[in-house]
């Protein structure tokens, strides 16, 4: 299956939970936030959120801003 992560295509062997996917991708700490298919997913929901074929993830972190 394929998912889009920050606009780039990633191949996954099977559907997994968001928490596992983030761990696999190397995200750690608390300075990032996630949206799946354009909707915010709270940190407390990572373990309950299934990532499926075709899903699109946005993973964001603090940057400078005006």
């Amino acid at each position, binding site marked *: 299956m394929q998912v889009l992560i920050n606009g780039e295509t990633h191949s996954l062997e099977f559907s997994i939970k968001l928490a596992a996917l983030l761990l696999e991708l190397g995200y750690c700490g608390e300075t990032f*936030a996630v949206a799946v298919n354009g909707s915010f997913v*709270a940190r407390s929901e990572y373990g309950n959120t299934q990532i499926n074929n075709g899903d699109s993830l946005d993973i964001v*972190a603090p940057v400078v801003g005006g």
Partner: protein
Amino acid sequence: MSDLLTLYGKTFSSRLLVGTALYPSPAIMRQSVQASASEIITLSLRRQNPAQQRDNSFWNYIREFGCQLLPNTAGCKSSREAIELAKMSQEIFQTDWIKLEVIGDDYNLQPDPFGLVEAARELVQLGFKVLPYCTDDLVLCRKLLDVGCEVLMPWGAPIGTGQGLLNKYNLQTLRDRLSDVPLIIDAGIGAPSQATEALEMGFDAVLLNTAIAKAQDPVRMAQAFKLAVESGRIAFNSGLMLRRQTASPSTPTLDMPFWQQAESMLQE
């Protein structure tokens, strides 16, 4: 005499809000924010992959400041995008304050008034303290107040242009008609004199970024803006004189020397 700025129940002694972008380096950003004495700073969220872990000094400095963080939704073009980004900001920055931007035109980065009101309504219902970046349209501003915004941030000029207060009639109308609402001029300020003018007109504060960050010496420019904002506020509180069309001497005219002499010479 204390003259504090109150926004959503929090008080601030500085009336200058600054952005954190476009500085030559994180270290200069840090020094500039400190020189501005600002207590509210803006920042944002963007995509980040672990492989591209950036220099963390920016985020470390931000946490060190201890300022009220005002995350923005810059770049969002729909209310839906802005709402979701606001939720992400709330989780990361641990604040319910949001500088709400919904952009309606790429060329002049003009706020989309319809998307803005829609997003503001939903975010207020979710408990956010919304500071909308809006145009200087009185009716739009009223709608934003109607949906629960307690602070408004009308533009002076389009973002990054440094053109100052382009539509003073509209801005003065806003100030006069919304006399109890905290109004912050956001965007378009290019020079300290323009910030002073905004405060002299009775605006409660100014928010700017480029004018400091893109100065040749950002740290000194931050200090200049600090003084300009303080000066404008003192001037406003002092009550400006009324403008006149014709000259009126400031030096007393009574007992002017030579006057009689000139008169008597004419009579001869």
